[in-house]
């Protein structure tokens, strides 16, 4: 997988197929990006599991915090990691001990570890780096267009007005990411420099 520019079908396939998402580094502080993403994905119908050892015994939007991936005690489809690039590898190593393995490992905006990604891909896990599932879901459903964001999708079909708890269709014609190529190039340059 080319981790500089993902085909929309790759992202679409992931968001259409996963049902449960364990979020490593989920924060109960309501201005943190992890809180935003957790709340949004829960509202769009995903089965969300907050992972944060510092908050065990508490809940995030009604879901009990779990100390680590190994403590979830049931299969999860996707692991969404809200940690800096330097803290990714231990999370991947723990994820690779799970049985069954997760289908997808996702690293948030700004997070990228190509060596860790290669380990996960070697056992058949799909990997996404330096993206946000909330933004990608909003983009492919065109819900994000309300913020003036280039969704890189076109459609002549009428979409339903989104309401609370509703899953949205992500199956729209896609520009394929080519039209924000400058932004992808800048991200690649940054990751190569660091």
């Amino acid at each position: 997988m080319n981790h500089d520019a993902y085909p929309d079908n790759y992202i679409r396939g992931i968001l259409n197929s996963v049902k449960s998402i364990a979020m490593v580094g989920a924060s109960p502080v309501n201005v943190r990006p992890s809180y935003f993403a957790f709340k949004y994905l829960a509202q769009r119908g995903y089965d969300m599991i907050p992972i944060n050892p510092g908050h065990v015994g508490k809940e995030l939007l009604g879901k009990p915090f779990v100390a680590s991936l190994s403590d979830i005690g049931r299969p999860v489809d996707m692991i969404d990691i809200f940690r800096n690039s330097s803290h990714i590898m231990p999370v991947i190593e723990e994820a690779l001990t799970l049985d069954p393995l997760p289908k997808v490992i996702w690293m948030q905006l700004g997070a990228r570890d190509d060596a860790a990604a290669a380990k996960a891909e070697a056992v058949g896990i799909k990997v996404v780096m330096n993206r946000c599932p909330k933004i990608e879901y909003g983009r492919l459903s065109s819900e994000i267009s309300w913020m003036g964001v280039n969704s890189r999708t076109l459609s002549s079909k009428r979409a339903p007005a989104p309401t609370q708890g509703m899953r949205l269709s992500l199956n729209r014609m896609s520009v394929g990411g080519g039209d924000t190529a400058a932004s992808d190039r800048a991200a690649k340059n940054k990751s190569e420099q660091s």
Partner: protein
Amino acid sequence: MSDRLPGFSTLAVHAGAQPDPTTGARATPIYQTTSFVFNDADHAASLFGLQAFGNIYTRIGNPTNAVLEERVAALEGGTAALAVASGHAAQVVVLQQLLQPGDEFIAARKLYGGSINQFTHAFKSFGWNVVWADPDDIASFERAVTPRTKAIFIESIANPAGSITDIEAISTVARKAGVPLIVDNTLASPYLIRPIDHGADIVVHSLTKFLGGHGNSLGGIIVDAGTFDWSTGGKYPMLSEPRPEYHGIRLQETFGNFAFAIACRVLGLRDLGPALSPFNAFMILTGIETLPLRMQKHCDNAKAVAEYLAGHPAVASVSYAGLPSDKYNQLARKYAPKGAGAVFTFSLKGGYDAGVNLVSKLQLFSHLANVGDTRSLVIHPASTTHSQLDDAAKITSGAGPDVVRLSVGIEDKEDLIADLEQALGA
């Protein structure tokens, strides 16, 4: 469901505009409303806290305006955009995110006269200090960089003379200085030049001109290329630091490669207030659907008119980058191969009086202070758009006393040439 890349004309018609979810209306409806109901208290809190996508109040966002924003972002190859009331408003909102009082920005000396005034006088009162550089001398930009420099501002095709700016060379200076390059792409429109492809980090437009294209609606827009890393060194606290307006959110870490557009919306437009009317957004959207057709006709007509003027005995010189003899022709071939735009200047052997005489005799060309209309327009910059500049600044910005500026419309070129013939010849 293929990942196909649509062409420019397809994007000009479709980007951002799906049928209305409620009514199925195919044309983008005009959401002429100030405000939008919340589903419940939690939804309201989520929207105000920037946790959810959605509409609150038209000063922050509006569904008609959002279609316009997405469309221009798609045409420019940016990650997101924000529409505002005018091109001038776009410039204020952009620089508010980048500069603190006492900071500097470098601007090309060749700019729309209104921008020169705004930068020199209005922004001075905010403590934003403009430092001028010469777009024909790239080294002058390098020499102007100081530790307080926060941005570089240029026009892709510069008003009034239609000169072409070497965007890539200046973007190299900006990258080295660690500051974003802002390109005003008004006179080119993304049909002719996409500055982001050449290294721009932010693109601004007066939508009033070629994008709207019909001389009927004011508007401006800011496009975020998603290319600049705002987190380095605390240089851009509006993007990188916790914002007290939003309980400590850091916009870059939350919104990634469209954080600048969000900052312009939630810190700029929300607090400064230059919102675009949804009706104007609708008019401009309608204009953009025909941008590729109009822009090509504008350019073809402009080239024919420039060639005619270059051969006329009363004309001293023509400044149009589309002419092979023009000093900017090489840059035009590189940056704007489909055409060098439709705004240019020429000077008359008879000087100031001949200019005034010409303007008064023209019958099809309208004498007014605008460009980028379907109609052909004429103006004498020295006595109008650039009149507040001193004589030296008039000449360096290409608006000397003998100079006449045309914005060539989409009429039949034979009629435009005939109008100039009768006005020049008599």
